């Protein structure tokens, strides 16, 4: 309880952290209230499929009927933004969650057992880390076929090694500490020592890095969607909706900004979402990092 109160106090002292928390809270509300904010048409099988009003290729500017206007092929941008919030949370939380889990587990095992287990696992991280994130992710999605599911797996695959490296380093130093030796002297099994004593004590730095990198995970996933490797056209996914705007940056003759909304609205939404995570990540680091106090 005391710790929680301290966290709230720290959050209050940092206005930027408050802003980040507020942004993410707003997106949580939007995602939770999606069926109310943008009710799907009756009889829709997939709520993430954005309703189309007509098939005309030219985007339509924001109006009373379409608050944020439509993209090419008349996908309603407002609907896409609202339901896209759910997609964004799903991608961010699943990718970060799974890659932290895998990284902690493999990094923990590598650091704890050492020897050839460590050698093999660390050479694996070397190989994955030898690629720029986005490049390897593009290859994986291209080979397995474009889909949102594959985008998530690809980003997980390129993300876990940094957590594993960090975890391994922490475990290496913690396993020499007295309380681990004491646990071993009491006859605790390897698994018990690793999962009850070492991992919980080595977790904080990993969590800090995870919270700081959530924003970049969202950007990488959106970039893959933007390249046409993610969700299919018409799916409520922000990156995918921006890729629909690429043909319209020129506007029409006489009005170069005619179709500004096709870029600006999904662009600003992704920006705010990532900004929220980055500000929140800074706050988490400030709170969890004891060196800051």
């Amino acid at each position, binding site marked *: 309880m005391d710790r929680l109160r301290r966290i709230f106090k720290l959050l209050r002292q940092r206005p*930027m952290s408050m802003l980040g928390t507020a942004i993410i809270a707003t997106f949580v509300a939007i995602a939770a209230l999606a069926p109310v904010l943008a009710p799907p048409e009756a009889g829709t099988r997939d709520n993430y499929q954005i309703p189309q009003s007509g098939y005309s290729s030219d985007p339509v500017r924001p109006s009373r009927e379409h608050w944020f206007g439509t993209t090419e092929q008349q996908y309603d941008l407002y609907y896409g933004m609202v339901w896209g919030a759910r997609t964004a949370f799903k991608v961010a939380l699943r990718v970060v969650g799974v890659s932290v889990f895998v990284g902690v587990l493999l990094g923990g095992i590598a650091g704890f057992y050492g020897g050839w287990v460590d050698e093999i696992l660390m*050479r*694996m991280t*070397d*190989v*994955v880390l*030898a*690629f*720029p*994130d*986005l*490049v*390897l992710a*593009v*290859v*994986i*999605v*291209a*080979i*397995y076929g474009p889909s949102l599911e594959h985008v998530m797996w690809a980003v997980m695959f390129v993300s876990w090694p940094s957590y594993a490296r960090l975890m391994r380093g922490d475990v290496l130093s913690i396993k020499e500490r007295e309380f681990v030796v004491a646990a071993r002297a009491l006859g605790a099994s390897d698994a018990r020592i690793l999962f009850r004593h070492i991992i919980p004590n080595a977790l904080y730095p990993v969590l800090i890095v995870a919270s700081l990198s959530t*924003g970049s995970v969202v*950007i990488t996933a*959106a*970039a893959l969607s*933007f*390249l*046409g*490797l993610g969700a299919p056209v018409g799916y409520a996914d922000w*990156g995918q909706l*921006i890729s629909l*705007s*690429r043909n319209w*940056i*020129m*506007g029409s003759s006489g009005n*170069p*900004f005619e179709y*500004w909304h096709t*870029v*600006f609205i999904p*662009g600003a939404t*992704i*920006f705010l979402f*990532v*900004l929220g995570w*980055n*500000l929140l990540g800074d706050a988490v680091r400030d709170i969890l990092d004891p060196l800051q106090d």
Partner: protein
Amino acid sequence: MLRYILKRLAFLPVVMFGVTLLLFICLQTLSPAMRASLYVKDPRQLAQLDAVIEKYGLNKPVYVQYGIWLRQVAHGDLGYSETAKMPVAEAIRSFLPATIELTVLAFFPILFVGVTFGVLSAVYRDRLIDHVTRFVAITGYSLPSFVLGLILLMIFYGRLHWLPPGRYTLDSDMLIHGDRFRHWSGLLTLDCALNRQWSAALDVAKHMVLPACTLLYISVALLLRITRSAMLEELGRDYVRTARAKGLPESVVVRKHALANVLIPIVTLSSLLFVGLLGGVVITETVFDFPGIGRWGVQAAQQLDVPGVLGSTMLAAFLFVLANLLSDVLYALVDPRIRVGA
């Protein structure tokens, strides 16, 4: 020192071996018929796809196939890229200079802006320049490059017609591919200048302004943050207090004392920065239709042009590992403590 460099160099082939292995394992999930396209250079060959599969042993066990494939790569035969409409080796020769040109053009401004404003931000902490710098850093961190790129295009191309996408205009294209044009380096701005074609050089440079600015804004954030926090840390140290107590002018304290120590993390970071740029060009080149390695890789991936994907990825990984190696060596050069440890 030499031993340290050699030790790190020995690491390079090990990682590259792993890189090829990983790519190959990924490719094994494709059907033999799809992988056969690696070797099909002529549409007429498609009729004998089975023969191609047989000839190159695509039905053989994985390790045999890997051996065959590795031998071909070692002989420089990387296949034919359908998206580039030329052999992979030739595609690399044609696209790599463009990417290098763009990366270099963005890299030095990033270093300059990042270090200068990072230091200023720390020295004038909580003043206006600090707030502006931190705003730029946090927004640059949060803005996807494709969003920034599209907005820049909308303003500077759609509205103002100043800075078009692509590599050059039609006039420069004809000039550069004309008989009288000598290709010295493949870097077009340099080549145009050496050929004394000043308007073409200007044209090529103009086409790189927007992508370079996009890379700058996105990539400078990390450097700003690290420089600022490292500088703040150094400025709080005892030796800085001593220097001030001696009565040294503040500018000397900042430049000669604190900054010298801050340069160590910055040097290591420069490789991370290069890495960031390599990842960044993938999107940036695609948005600005800039014919470099990044755009080629993406097109190859979108159209499942396997040789193209392999060629561009292995090149990216190679440059990436090389950049990391270079940074480690530089790190050892600036910081003697590392060498002793090695």
